[in-house]
């Protein structure tokens, strides 16, 4: 094969970031540094989840020029869940459904310009969703 599909994509999958079992390590692998706590990031997630296999999370950012949204779950076996890169014309708002192994903070990191901002919300999980 001369061309693998993945080589056609601008973005490659960041294996070392997704293998990380600590938030700090995953963040380093993604180039996230000196993130500042921000109230302009909004996380809508249930306070309590019956089933950790499906936890719906809505994330929006009021920070101008938001270019990336990263979702991490601190207590999951691998902490990095999703990393979104937004191009022109995409609102800084995503809704997705994630797995949570146990009660944990969901940590969101937003990149705007060369700066990183963060916000966390705890979700109590009654039943393990990672299997």
């Amino acid at each position, binding site marked *: 094969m001369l061309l693998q599909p993945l080589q056609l994509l601008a*973005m490659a999958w960041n294996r070392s970031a997704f293998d990380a079992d600590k938030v700090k390590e995953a963040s380093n692998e993604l180039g996230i540094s000196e993130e500042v706590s921000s109230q302009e990031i909004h996380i809508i997630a249930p306070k309590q989840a019956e089933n950790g296999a499906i936890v719906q999370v809505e994330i929006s950012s009021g920070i101008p020029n938001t270019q990336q949204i990263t979702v991490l779950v601190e207590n999951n076996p691998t902490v*990095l869940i999703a990393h979104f890169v937004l191009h022109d014309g995409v609102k800084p708002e995503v809704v997705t459904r*994630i797995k949570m192994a146990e009660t944990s903070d969901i940590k969101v990191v937003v990149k705007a310009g060369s700066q990183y901002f963060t916000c966390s919300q705890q979700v109590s999980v009654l039943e393990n969703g990672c299997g």
Partner: protein
Amino acid sequence: MPANIKMRAKLNDGVTEIKAIMSHPMETGRRKDDHDRLIPPHFIQLVNVSLNGRVALEAQWGTGVSKNPYLTFYLTNAQVGDIVKLTWYDNLGNSESQEIAVVQG
């Protein structure tokens, strides 16, 4: 074969809401089957969404995205009739695409 990606794109007051559900097991590699054998990891790693052929949203996912992944996001620069195309790529080298036209919501 039925489409494995269900998608819709609705324009309301200048903002287009894109909703997608992708059929995929999203196996973590940590689950065991009925015979106590580990089920190998099988999950979507990359998602690429374009508007009229121009990249709009790129995502990297891990095993922590739920089975049959769900995604909603919003475009501010789409018109009725514009084409939104979503493609995913998984860790086993599979990929699926779906494209739809933006409709008035």
